[in-house]
């Protein structure tokens, strides 16, 4: 719902600004009312100099380009234009993402090649990195020149421990002020203790039990695969008591999934809700399908704790028990190493049943449904369902809400009918803080902001999360633990509201779009300085995006060079290598 608001705000912009040709006239004549100190001549940058060819099919030098951007250009010191190849209803949601934080041009140029940017990014955020004791903690101090409201305390410390029990004990001992993801079993203890405050986090994620209707395993005989039969899949969908699973293994605040996508996302819960649990009906269906005595199969999983699956092996064991008791299906459990598991899932090499889930990158239907069931989806569930693929295509490209809604009603009903998977739960989680921490909160996108908190009368706030950030140049990071740390020191043009999902202006005072939604114009704040004292201007924005976008950009280096979120959210990189013969 909140998300919808954000989208509406975006749509309200209207085509105010016309595209001015790039490079026309040097805009050094900054209007005098702008409180710029004379910063010398400003030469607006356009990237690439000539707009990229949309839908470029590739030639001898380069592979095809199917991305969203055509050109990003500075107009004057505080104005940036994004020229798009196709309209994008979630543009503001995307640019608010922390991978697209704006960094200073000089520090990008100086610190990228020597990897300094990975440890000491020069951002604009309320905190500045002072020390990263690897393996142990990160220390940040308040940014004295912050453009927004400065934090009330001096030092912010990030610590981490993979064990929820250990995080909780540290909280109890008073050694930390706040922890992420207390164990589900500890929720009651935290709530019952007046020294602590619990902040449940709505689950923008889905845990599901997947089936493969045609496993890609050498020598696999699909005629013996019970899950090739839609009726069997439906029977299992009906024969799993999802309420039991959520009640016993998920923390309070979790929900039994009524649809694949969590309902907080617009259009997620249109169409019929999921099957009711009915063991007898399920057994009858299974018998009709030719399995009166059940069958044996395998439950594949990886033992990795995620928001959608707080206790993997226990839930797997529970599902094993339920299959046996409710449906006579004997399942053995196969735990695989995480990377191997994802590999196998993508390759469609997991027969039987597999347990997986998905957490929202940005709150939109496409991020959930297209990834799993769309035309570009992997072989995870076996053969695709053509009508489902088609209707998802409609949902992703329509700009009218009514059209999108109709498409998603149909998509959800098709998923319910075909049962490529059984959505089990939207896993809630929480943060817990010392009771005297004011403005403590949890964020549905897991990007808690500490700047606004007041840690009692202390001058430092210690936060303990699940794992150590891998790097702090978040254009090239994809894990939540790194992103949360980045969000304290770097900022994007927009930001998600504190504790919510709506995108609101941050470094930009506003971004508006033209009528057909292919040109976005962002106006920057004029009072922002980077941690090193440099001023934020439009060229910083262009370069921050360009280094991610262009594979051939000399600064397209990052940590491992994947820039996963850029390609995932904006459709691909520029200057792909030519396809191999």
């Amino acid at each position, binding site marked *: 719902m909140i998300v919808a608001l954000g989208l509406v705000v975006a749509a309200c912009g209207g085509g105010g600004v016309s595209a001015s040709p790039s490079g026309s006239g040097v805009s050094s004549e900054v209007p005098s009312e702008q409180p710029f100190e004379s910063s010398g001549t400003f030469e607006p940058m356009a990237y690439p100099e000539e707009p990229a060819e949309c839908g470029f099919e590739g030639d001898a030098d380069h592979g095809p380009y199917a991305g969203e951007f055509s050109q990003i250009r500075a107009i004057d010191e505080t104005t940036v234009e994004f020229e798009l190849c196709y309209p994008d209803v979630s543009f503001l949601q995307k640019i608010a993402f922390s991978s697209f934080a704006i960094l200073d041009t000089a520090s990008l140029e100086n610190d990228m090649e020597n990897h300094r940017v990975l440890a000491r990014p020069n951002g604009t955020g309320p905190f500045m990195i002072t020390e990263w004791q690897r393996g142990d903690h990160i220390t940040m101090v308040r940014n004295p020149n912050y453009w927004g409201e400065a934090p009330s305390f001096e030092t912010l410390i990030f610590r981490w421990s993979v064990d*929820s*029990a250990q995080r909780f004990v540290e909280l109890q001992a008073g050694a930390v002020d706040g922890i992420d993801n207390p164990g589900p*079993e500890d929720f009651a203890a935290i709530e019952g203790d007046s020294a602590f405050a619990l902040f449940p986090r709505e689950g923008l994620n889905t845990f599901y039990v997947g089936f493969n209707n045609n496993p890609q395993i050498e020598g696999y005989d699909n005629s013996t695969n019970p899950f090739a039969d839609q009726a069997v899949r439906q029977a299992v969908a009906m024969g799993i008591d999802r309420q039991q699973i959520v009640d*016993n293994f998920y923390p309070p605040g979790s929900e039994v999934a009524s649809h694949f996508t969590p309902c907080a996302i617009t259009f997620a819960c249109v169409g019929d809700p999921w099957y009711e649990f009915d063991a007898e009906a399920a057994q009858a269906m299974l018998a009709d399908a030719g399995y009166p005595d059940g069958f044996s199969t395998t439950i594949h999983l990886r033992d990795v704790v995620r928001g959608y699956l707080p206790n993997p092996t*226990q839930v797997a*064991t529970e599902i094993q028990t339920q299959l046996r008791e409710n449906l006579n299906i004997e399942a053995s*459990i*196969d*735990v695989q*190493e995480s990377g191997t598991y994802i590999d196998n899932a993508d390759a469609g090499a997991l027969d039987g049943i597999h347990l997986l889930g998905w957490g929202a990158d940005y709150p939109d239907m496409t991020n959930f449904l297209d990834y799993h069931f769309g035309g570009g989806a992997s072989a995870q569930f076996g053969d695709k369902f053509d009508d489902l693929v088609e209707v998802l295509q409609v949902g992703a490209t329509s700009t009218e809400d009514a059209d999108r809604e109709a498409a998603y009603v149909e998509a959800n009903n098709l998923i319910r009918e075909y049962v490529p998977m059984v959505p089990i739960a939207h896993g809630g989680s929480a943060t817990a803080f010392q009771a005297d921490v004011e403005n403590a909160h949890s964020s549905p996108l897991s990007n808690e902001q500490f700047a606004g908190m007041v840690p009692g009368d202390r001058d430092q706030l210690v936060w303990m999360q699940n794992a150590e950030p891998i790097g702090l140049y978040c254009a090239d990071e994809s894990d939540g633990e790194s992103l949360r740390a980045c969000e304290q020191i770097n900022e994007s043009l927009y930001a998600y509201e504190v504790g919510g999902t709506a995108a609101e202006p941050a470094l930009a005072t506003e971004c508006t779009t033209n009528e057909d939604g292919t040109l976005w114009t962002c106006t920057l704040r004029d009072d922002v300085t980077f941690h090193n004292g440099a001023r934020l201007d439009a060229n910083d924005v262009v370069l921050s995006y360009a280094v991610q976008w262009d594979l051939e950009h000399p600064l397209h280096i990052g940590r491992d060079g994947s820039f996963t979120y850029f390609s995932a959210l904006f459709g691909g990189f520029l200057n792909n290598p030519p396809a191999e013969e």
Partner: protein
Amino acid sequence: MTDRIPAVTADVLEPVRVTGRPANIWTDTARVILRQRSAQAGVAILGLLLFLAIFADIVAPFGPTQDLRYGDTPERIARLTPPCVHLLGCATTNPQHLFGVDGNFFDVFSRVVHGTRISLFIGFVTVGFAIVLGTLIGAVAGYAGGWVDNVLMRLMDVVLSFPALILAIAIVTVIGSGIIQAQLAIGIVAIPIYARVMRASVLSIKERDYVTASRALGESSRGILARRILPNALTPLIVQGTLGIGGAVLEVAALSFLGLGAQPPLAEWGSMIGQNRNFIFNAPHLIIFPGIALSLTVLGFNLLGDGMRDALDPRLNR
């Protein structure tokens, strides 16, 4: 680096070689061993464990993966219920669970009892595997000498150049997690110990009169190895092996603890501890009971091994 492993060498067999009455070697040896107090304690503990392993189905009130909510007499019981022993004052209206209930509605006592079976099996199989391969390598190296010896023993040195657990973790990552794979990994890591014991035995026996005599009589190398040398090297191997079983049980449990060995819901103690480590503060019974069982098993083998070594090694005989 020949003296790294406090190996038992062939010398220890001297006092036991009761010549002339081969039929009674084993009973005599047993008598000598059982004179040791530590061996008595070890045998007592292992006897208890063996009993539990054999009669697990009778001793344990439930199956190792029997969900208490289902079955013939379904119970309405909460997850992670702490131990309830009627004799110790737990209300008789509550169902009795000696070691409490775990996160999957399984009876912890039943799982610990069934775990005995698994751990004893792990210990014997792992060490058995290591002894067989180690003996083979050690015998070949010791008997052949020269470059064969050199290459084989340098190979053993390579294996010994890693902390055992780290190498085992690497091996398990390569061949995949699982209880069999974990045993294989721990077995491989243990091979050099037995290879060295065997090689030392072979070297010390090789030049003895009766071996030289057999050789002079035209017996083949293989025959000498199998009939003359191996039987005499057996005692140190068995002593070392008994001491090694405790270690093997521990190391496989450690792999399972790290999630690389036994996979849930198998009732393996290390895996039970590892899976429940986040409950250590609110349901410590999930850790403490399998922990005690694990220690007890290792203790049993260690005591017996110590007893054997003390009994059979004249230098330590007091």
